[in-house]
């Protein structure tokens, strides 16, 4: 089956991103296709490479980036939600006149249409949030 995944909360604060990660990994292991993981609301905060979690805890951002690399996942961060919360890639930083960017490897910034497209294309859209 073809899955779309939506992540609506930031890392560490809510379990949503953890559950979405374990679900995505299990779906891939079962041979399903992950069409896209879409990060919305505070979910965009999963995409900052500036996090430094305690050494004895999981690194949520790195875990997503590694899963994306291994399975060629499409991790999409909503641009409107990202602007409100300070998640930038190089292009956005330039466009907004900001002096740096913080997006992590494997994530890309795009529009809400990517979420609707996932809804249309996928057999199941599974939402994880608060």
């Amino acid at each position, binding site marked *: 089956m073809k899955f779309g995944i939506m992540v*609506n909360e930031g890392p560490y604060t809510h*379990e*949503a991103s953890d*559950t979405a990660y374990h*679900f995505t990994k*299990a779906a891939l292991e079962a041979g399903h296709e992950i069409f896209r993981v879409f990060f919305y609301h505070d979910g965009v905060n999963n995409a900052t490479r500036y996090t430094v979690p305690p050494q004895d805890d999981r690194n949520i951002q790195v875990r997503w980036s590694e899963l994306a690399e291994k399975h060629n996942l499409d991790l999409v961060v909503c641009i409107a939600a990202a602007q409100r919360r300070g998640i930038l890639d190089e292009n956005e930083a330039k466009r907004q006149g900001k002096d740096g960017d913080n997006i992590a490897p494997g994530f890309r910034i795009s529009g809400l249409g990517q979420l609707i497209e996932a809804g249309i294309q996928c057999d*199941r859209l599974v*939402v994880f949030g608060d």
Partner: protein
Amino acid sequence: MAMLHTVNKSPFERNTLDSCMRHALPGSAILLIEDGVVAATKGTAVEGKVKEKMGDVSFFVLGPDLAARGLGEDKLIDGISVVDYNGFVELTTKYDNVQSWL
């Protein structure tokens, strides 16, 4: 169609499970995840409501979340099935659709 509903909040803190149960049709299923798993345990103030709904709807609970909260499977209401993340994925494929009660 038969829907898989997910509930991730404690029924003691929020109205999420109540609202889900009010809208879950016979033949659908409710999967309790994250803080929602506490609704699957015996002897609570919501046990009666859950048991009543079990006549119509299948209940599942995510094992890893239960274990994290120190709730052993011996504490579960009879008839609620424990699944892991693989089982969660399977449920989403077995039912026609998924609705997350956020």
